[in-house]
């Protein structure tokens, strides 16, 4: 049977067919839909973990216990996951173990553009790289066979265009889901120095075997078109290069991104007069080929930045330009992402901007609080850094600065890695104010439940982490819960808590406007008679409020009736309309 699937859905299907029993992940674009799609397969147990490290460790446990296991993350999630990953490379597996990691060239939804292939080399872990949905499914299935055959965890490297493209997949039945025996094996699974020293030897032997395997596996394919030019490529870049260059070049497509073959590459290059390496982001393949003493073109003609296109490749290899018959002559307004109409974060940032506070930001929808016109956020580094970085800022700039400083972090992000920063503040006698933007969901990645929502990935009721009690338990005595849409009250609370000489937590509580149960009555409308055109309502940066023909207008097709504009209008000139 054939079905059209997202790359991510195909990875989930591959996991199902491979007999996977356990999936634990933290959401992260562009990887999220893998885990969301595994939920449909009753044979697989799935969960959202508090962060990627916990998810990977849970998957490692499942593997040691004898079940095939999967953990998925985005490229920066792999940084969080790295600690257990490097050591499970030493222990190896019992049930097959795969880490699916999705890079984001072009940074559609990320804070950096790191290339996760470096992790494969650094952690000495086999890495496969599919280039369409069929390969996503097939390579996932193969990854489990290889994991058990070579006693190694396996990376499956994806990228945004592979994860979020749909193409046809041939479906197979599920096989190999029996749970393997578990027996205590201290030399293999207890990584203290005496054992780890021996396991490192095993890792190097495994690497040798994998390098030999890379020479002959059908995961690496040669397409000999009898051409003078050769192209070495992998992943989505293969698809771009194939479309751009067709049969005019020979291809070596590396389905196995690590380790890479030597003889196969030498033989391929020997038959070509000129060889190009086509790979997005870093010159990983290029450096490998050059280390073999082979001269190739790579980053001398291709960029290190962003995504590639077929046109770019055609230009670099054959110097052929693609033409467009219309060229944009005047600059047209761009359309950056914005906080949605009705977003609770808008109210929070409106107040923080009004008070002129320095805002230590974090990762989530609320990072958009840095965009015009709110421009409230000062820093965004990674998940959790809003809390810990603010602590460092205060220690350098002192008490007065601290009274004009807050951290903002979402509920899911706080549980992911904000808690430890908060402990740092309490333990080291800080007096920071941390605002937890509790919108009752993991918003940016598309509404996943988390430990604070009281629901599992299956939508079943479970214990919810009580953020108030949690903050109190780590030693915060000033904990205030406040609705940011009550703008006056919220402003008062922020003033009080930032002025205090001890640490505080404000829980800004209002659910995401996109949640199904969030319904506001009617729409907001400007009363043109009472409106004084002060444009105060436009300062909140609501996409539904515009200035047209000398008046403030609210677009009914965008307004969800949240009423925040009514709360900030000093002349009561905005009314509710049914």
């Amino acid at each position, binding site marked *: 049977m054939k079905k059209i699937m997202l790359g991510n859905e195909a990875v989930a299907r591959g996991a199902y067919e491979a007999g996977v029993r356990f999936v634990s992940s933290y959401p992260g674009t562009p990887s999220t839909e893998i885990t969301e799609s595994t939920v449909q397969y009753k044979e697989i147990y799935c969960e959202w973990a508090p962060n990627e490290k916990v998810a990977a460790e849970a998957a490692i446990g499942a593997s040691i216990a004898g079940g095939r296991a999967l953990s998925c993350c985005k490229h920066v999630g792999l940084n969080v996951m790295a600690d257990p990953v490097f050591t499970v490379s030493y222990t190896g597996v019992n049930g097959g173990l795969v880490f699916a990691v999705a890079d984001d060239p072009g940074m559609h939804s990320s804070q950096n553009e790191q290339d996760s292939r470096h992790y494969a080399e650094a952690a000495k872990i086999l890495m496969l790289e599919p280039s369409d949905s069929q390969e996503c499914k097939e390579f996932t299935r193969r990854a489990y066979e290889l994991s058990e055959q070579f006693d190694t965890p396996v990376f499956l490297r994806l990228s945004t*265009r592979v994860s979020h*493209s749909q193409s046809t997949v041939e479906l197979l039945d599920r096989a190999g889901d029996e749970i393997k025996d578990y027996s205590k094996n201290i030399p293999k699974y207890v990584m203290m120095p005496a054992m780890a020293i021996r396991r490192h030897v095993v890792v190097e032997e495994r690497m040798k075997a994998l390098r030999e395997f890379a020479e002959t596996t059908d995961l690496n394919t040669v397409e000999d078109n009898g051409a003078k030019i050769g192209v070495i490529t992998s992943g989505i870049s293969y698809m771009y290069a*194939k479309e751009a260059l067709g049969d005019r070049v020979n291809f070596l497509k590396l389905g196995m991104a690590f380790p890479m073959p030597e003889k196969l590459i030498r033989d391929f290059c020997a038959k070509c007069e000129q060889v190009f390496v086509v790979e997005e982001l870093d010159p990983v393949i290029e450096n490998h080929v050059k280390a073999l003493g082979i001269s190739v073109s790579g980053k001398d003609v291709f960029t290190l930045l962003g995504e590639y*296109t077929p046109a770019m490749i055609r230009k670099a290899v054959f110097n052929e330009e693609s033409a467009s018959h219309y060229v944009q002559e005047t600059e047209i307004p761009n359309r950056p992402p914005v906080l949605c109409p009705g977003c609770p974060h808008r109210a929070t940032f409106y107040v923080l901007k009004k008070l002129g506070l320095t805002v230590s930001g974090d990762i989530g929808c609320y990072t958009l609080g840095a965009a*015009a016109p709110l421009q409230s956020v000062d820093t965004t580094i990674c998940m959790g850094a809003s809390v810990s970085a603010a602590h460092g800022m205060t220690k350098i700039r002192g008490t007065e600065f601290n009274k004009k400083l807050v951290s903002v972090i979402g509920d899911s992000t706080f549980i992911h890695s904000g808690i430890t920063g908060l402990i740092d503040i309490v333990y080291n006698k800080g007096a920071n104010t941390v605002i937890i933007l509790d919108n009752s969901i993991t918003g940016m990645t598309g509404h996943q439940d988390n430990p604070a929502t009281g629901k599992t990935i299956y939508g079943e009721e479970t214990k919810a982490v009580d953020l108030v009690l949690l903050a109190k338990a780590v030693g915060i005595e000033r904990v205030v819960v406040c609705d940011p849409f009550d703008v006056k009250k919220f402003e008062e609370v922020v003033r009080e808590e930032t002025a205090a000489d001890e640490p505080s937590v404000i829980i800004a509580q209002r659910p995401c406007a996109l949640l199904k149960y969030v319904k506001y009555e009617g729409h907001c409308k400007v009363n043109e008679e009472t409106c004084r055109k002060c444009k105060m309502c436009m300062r909140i940066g609501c996409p539904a409020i515009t200035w047209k023909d000398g008046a403030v207008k609210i677009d009914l097709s965008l307004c969800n009736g949240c009423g925040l504009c009514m709360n900030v209008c000093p002349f009561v000139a905005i009314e509710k309309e049914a």
Partner: protein
Amino acid sequence: MSTKNIMITGVGGQGTLLAVRILAHIVQEQGYDVKVSEVHGMSQRGGSVVTYLKYGDKVYSPIIGLGEADTILSFEKLEALRCLPYLKEGGEIIVNDQEIDPMPVITGAMEYPKDIEETLRAYAKVRLVKAGELAVEAGNTRTANVVLLGAMAAAGSIPKETWISALKDTVPERFLEVNLKAFDLGYAAAEA
């Protein structure tokens, strides 16, 4: 068959994804190789959203380059203009007659271009559809995306019945009637 390239563009939240999934379902049922490239995550939050759909005997790249699109289906006028450089010479644009101000216009940093329709018509065959009004007529403002799909169907060569059966396969039962009506209104508007 050589590859057909369709770009579907709009503003995050307008429902472009549903439209493209229905279209993908149809071309796959017709036996073509099909690839769709979607946008998820931060870019979805009220920003420009571009989805590519390509079908033919064999499709490699899921993305469409400058001057390569046969058809652009745009849910918003400015977004149609933004994608115009991607249109093939002789290509067609089906565009919703809706203007949504982007943030640089809201903050007053830039103006919303005034002559979009004329520019589009100078370079392409244009079908302008009042999808918002027709969606209201169908009975639900949220069916504007299906109105546009109807317009798209009228512009293309795939039989109307195929579209209707695809809608029946993809739209939940309780929303089916209003969506079929929206589709019909869009179809009729584009034929006219």
